[in-house]
Structures are given as C-alpha cells and as structure tokens.
C-alpha cells in the first residue's frame, strides 16, 4: 500500500501523538520520584533522592514486592506445566470436542476480571471451604496465566507440525525421549515468551486479586492502590512505580526478541 505525502504526514503526526500520550505520563512518574515537593508541584522546586531511600526502607513496599514476585513465580510455574500439557494434548491428538476444549481454556482471559474474581472466591469459600489466602491467590492467577502459555505453545506447535517428532521416533526415540530432545527444545523460546507475559500479567493484576487474596495478603498493586492517596506515602509509591517502569522494560524487550526472530522455527518450516 502506498500513501500520498499528505496522508503519510497525518499518520506520522498521529503516531507521534499517541506515543507522547503514552510516554509523557510515564516520564512524569520517573521525574517526580526525584521531586522535592511532597505534592508533586510542577515545575519541581528541586530534586532529591530521599524518596528513593525512603522507599527502600519501607517495610510495606518491600513486603508487597516479595508477595507479588512469589505469586507471579508460582502461578507462572503452574501455568507452564499445565499450559504446555494442554497445548500438546490439543495439538497432537484428535478427539471429539477438541475445539470446544480449546475455547474453554482461552475463555478466562476474555472474561471480565470481576466475574472471574467472584466466581473463584465463591468456589473457594463455599464449594471447597478453603480460607482465602496465598493458595487461593496463586490458583486464581494461574487460571489466566495458563492462557498465555497455552496460546504461545499451541501457536508454536502448529507452526512446527509433527514432522520432526516423526523423524525422532523413526530414529528409535520413544514418546518421552522425543518430547525431551525434540519437542521441548523447539518450544523453548515460545514457552519463555509465554512465561514472561504470564509473569507480567500476574504481577500487576488487581481485580481478581482483591476478590481472592483475603485480608492478610497485600500484593504490590494493592499496596500501591491503598497508599497512593496518603499524603506522606505518595512520594514512596511514586518511586516504586518509577522502579517498575524501568524494570518492566527488560522482560518486554526479551519476549519481543524471543518471539520475533526464531531461527530454529524458521528452519523447521
């Protein structure tokens, strides 16, 4: 498709505008983490690093980060195992109702978080009689983490086809050996990308978390939400947000790199 000069100019301007709209607030957060003013006066009357040291010392923030990382790690681990197995089962075996099962696995990501949250909380409390806590939180997060791993895994399996696995079995390798030596290595980058995304999803999830975490547990998003409007905590919250912005660039960059140019998959085609 080719555009006229004018159209191209307009499109470029629009793209620039969107980028500004997204990134100016982010830059502001980072800048404000050094703002002397407690109320984020603009322009900043002066710059300081005292909020950063205050944030490092804040027990609440530290604790929330640890909880969030733990939940995200465990949920991602569960998702990796179950999501991969589900993708393998659905892609490699034909059975009645295969497409329906596939749809059912993907559904949680399309459902509004409130619905998932209420449904899960109800199930835990009434059906299983489990107190809300770390366990229920992790399981709840795993439900939507599985989707991202599953989607990545099944897309990769579709692209690969069964050819390499047949070659492996032809050379004498059994089912398990074939999975270990051929299927898994070929899926590795897709699984890593899925895991990174799943970690990120869990890490900043707030709606399902409020319904399923119970009283005692505070994840980072919830801690931020509760402290943002307390005047003496606001600068510390801002620092945490700034740190997260910087940190989240790493997994996004990694997963893009992994998902994009995958030499091994291109070669298998």
């Amino acid at each position: 498709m080719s555009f006229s000069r004018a159209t191209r100019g307009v499109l470029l301007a629009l793209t620039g505008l969107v980028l500004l709209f997204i990134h100016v607030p982010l830059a502001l957060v980072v800048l404000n983490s050094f703002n002397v003013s407690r109320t984020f006066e603009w322009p900043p009357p002066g710059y300081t690093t005292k909020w950063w040291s205050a944030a490092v010392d804040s027990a609440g923030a530290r604790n929330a980060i640890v909880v969030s990382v733990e939940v995200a790690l465990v949920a991602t681990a569960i998702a990796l195992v179950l999501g991969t197995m589900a993708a393998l089962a659905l892609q490699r075996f034909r059975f009645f109702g295969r497409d329906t099962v596939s749809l059912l696995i993907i559904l949680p990501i399309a459902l509004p978080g409130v619905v998932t949250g209420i449904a899960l909380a109800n199930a835990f409390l009434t059906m299983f009689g489990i107190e809300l806590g770390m366990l229920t939180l992790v399981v709840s997060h795993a439900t939507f983490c599985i989707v991202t791993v599953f989607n990545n895994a099944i897309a990769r399996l579709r692209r690969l086809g069964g050819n390499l696995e047949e070659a492996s079995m032809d050379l004498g390798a059994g089912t398990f050996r074939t999975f270990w030596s051929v299927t898994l290595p070929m899926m590795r980058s897709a699984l890593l990308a899925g895991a990174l995304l799943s970690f990120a999803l869990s890490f900043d999830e707030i709606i399902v978390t409020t319904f399923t975490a119970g009283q005692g547990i505070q994840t980072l998003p919830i801690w931020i939400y509760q402290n943002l409007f307390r005047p003496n905590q606001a600068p510390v919250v801002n620092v945490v947000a700034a740190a997260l912005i910087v940190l989240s660039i790493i997994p996004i960059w990694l997963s893009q790199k992994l998902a994009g140019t995958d030499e091994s998959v291109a070669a298998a085609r």
Partner: protein
Amino acid sequence: MSTPAVELVGLTKSFGSVTAVDGLDLRIEDGEFFSMLGPSGSGKTTVLRMIAGFELPSAGRVLLAGEDVTGRPPFARDVNTVFQDYALFPHMDVLANVEYGLRVKRVPASQRRDRAMAALESVQLGQLARRRPTQLSGGQRQRVALARALVNRPRVLLLDEPLGALDLKLRRAMQLELKDLQREVGITFVFVTHDQEEALTMSDRIAVFSEGRIEQVASPAELYESPGTAFVAGFVGTSNLLSGDAAAAVLGRTGTFSIRPEKIHLDSDVESGNTTARGTVADVVYLGSVNHYLVDLDAGPTLTVLKQNLRDSTEQAMGRRGQQVTVGWADEHVIELSGDTQQVQQSHEKEKS
C-alpha cells in the same frame, strides 16, 4: 524364495471416505532398489508411512523380514526414513543430527562419533559436521538426512521423493550417487517418486500406483517395453495409445494398443516389412537432441513420432509442418494392453497440470 525384506498383505488405508490405499499386496526382496511410481495422490506416501509406522492401516498387515509389525510404533521397527523435507533437527548441528539415532540406542560415545563421522564422509560432508542445518544448501541437507538414516544400518531405508526439492542437475547427480550408495551398503531401498525417468534410472523393480492400487510391478525395461495396462503405458514414458475405432482403422485389430514414439519411423527411415500409414505433420516440437512430430493420420488418430536430430537442421525439421508423410513401424513394437484408456489420459493430464 528367501524371506522378503518387506511384505504387504491386503494393506488398506482410508481417511474418512477417501480410500488412499486399497488392498495392496506386495513383496520387496532383500537388497532390492524398489521404487513406487505413480501420479500425485495415488497413495505412495501413505504406503510408506504405514511401513514406517506413522500411520496405522485400516486393514491388512505389514511384515518386515517375515515379522508382523503392523501394530508396532515407529521406534520399534528396523526401518529408517528420509523425509521429503528432510526433517533435520534445527537445534542440533549436523553431527548431532547424524548421531541422534545412535545416542537413542545408547551406543557408547566414542563408537558413536566414529560411526557418525564415517556416515558423513560417505556422503562427502565430513567437513561440515559442525554446521547447523540452516547453514546448508538443499543438496547438503539431503545428504545429511541420508547419513542420519543410514548410520543406523536399518534393514530397510524408506525414501519419500528425497530429490524432489533439488534442481535438475543436482537431481541427476544424486540419482547416480544414491544408486551407488545402495549397491555399496546393500540395504533395501524403498523409493517413492512421481518422476518416471527417475524410477527407470535407479530401480531394480518398480511398482506403478494408480488410485491406491498397484497397476504393475516389473523391472524398468519390462515396464517400458511391455506395459501391462494402458495406464502404465501412458504413465511410463510417452506412448501412442490406439483403441476402438482408431485401432481398427490403423492396425485393423480390436483392442487397446501402444506404440512408443521412438519405434515409429518417418518417410525415408521406414523399413521394408513395416506397417505403414499416410498422414500430415500437424506440428513439430523441438526438444534439443530430438524432435517430436505430431502426425495426423489420414485414418483418424494422431501419432507422436520421435526423431533424433542426426541429419536434419532445425529449420528443415520445422519446415515439415503441413507436409504429407509416411509413417511405419514393425509389428512387434505394437503392444497389446488391457485396461481402460480413458483413465490413462485423465491421470496424464492431471500430472501435467
């Protein structure tokens, strides 16, 4: 007779309503270079996949060296496959690819390395052992696939159009190389192709497939000189098929007959004792070392006549368009066929399109 390397008994495979392979009976002898030749969709790959164990037959049995392996998985059969797209493992280098089968069978490391290197040497790829498959040309990948299969010393090697992706020149070279290799190692080769020339060049015996059935199993010479059915005559080489009214008009006989284009002589080449007919040259097709003359016989049918470019210049040959000519052939070169002519022409057209 000794135990055949591969024996297929009443082998049948249906995919839903499609019968891909229909009650096949076949014996492939030990050490043979055996080809399966047939048009696209005639079931060659499906047969190969059932021998390898990737596909379960709907009915019938597969025997390897006299042993029934019908229900066994691929990894419990003493056969190896060279896939059409090679299916090399992209995450392993060439040596690791070749070693894979040995590693799976727990051959000790030192022995494994030696055997893999020897296999790579035998396909002239020793220097490329550390490359990745992505860094190889099509012909080199093909050789790696061959080495990876042969290093396991299987009883039977299955090859599914292994030369299909190569250009003509490389293809010719590889045909000869494959044939030599097969003679050297003495392993039974089952070779699938839809290229009749390739099958004729390489094989000890050829099975011609049509619509999931075998039309004829014979040596290349036998297949060419005395095709059993109209389908085989049409598919293997070019053939002039005469049946019904045409046969009655030209040959004065009833039935279906085939005359090869090179067995028909033109004008001054017609020998005494030949059966002759008069006609007009409708077209001349220039093919390099030979020309095809399409001759409309006065009696009705059109014959293709092949003539080598020994004396005539190209202009002379082309200048014969529209001329009256006499064609002639020896009666012993008129081959009587059984079978349905219609089917041949259809599948021939399918192949060309």
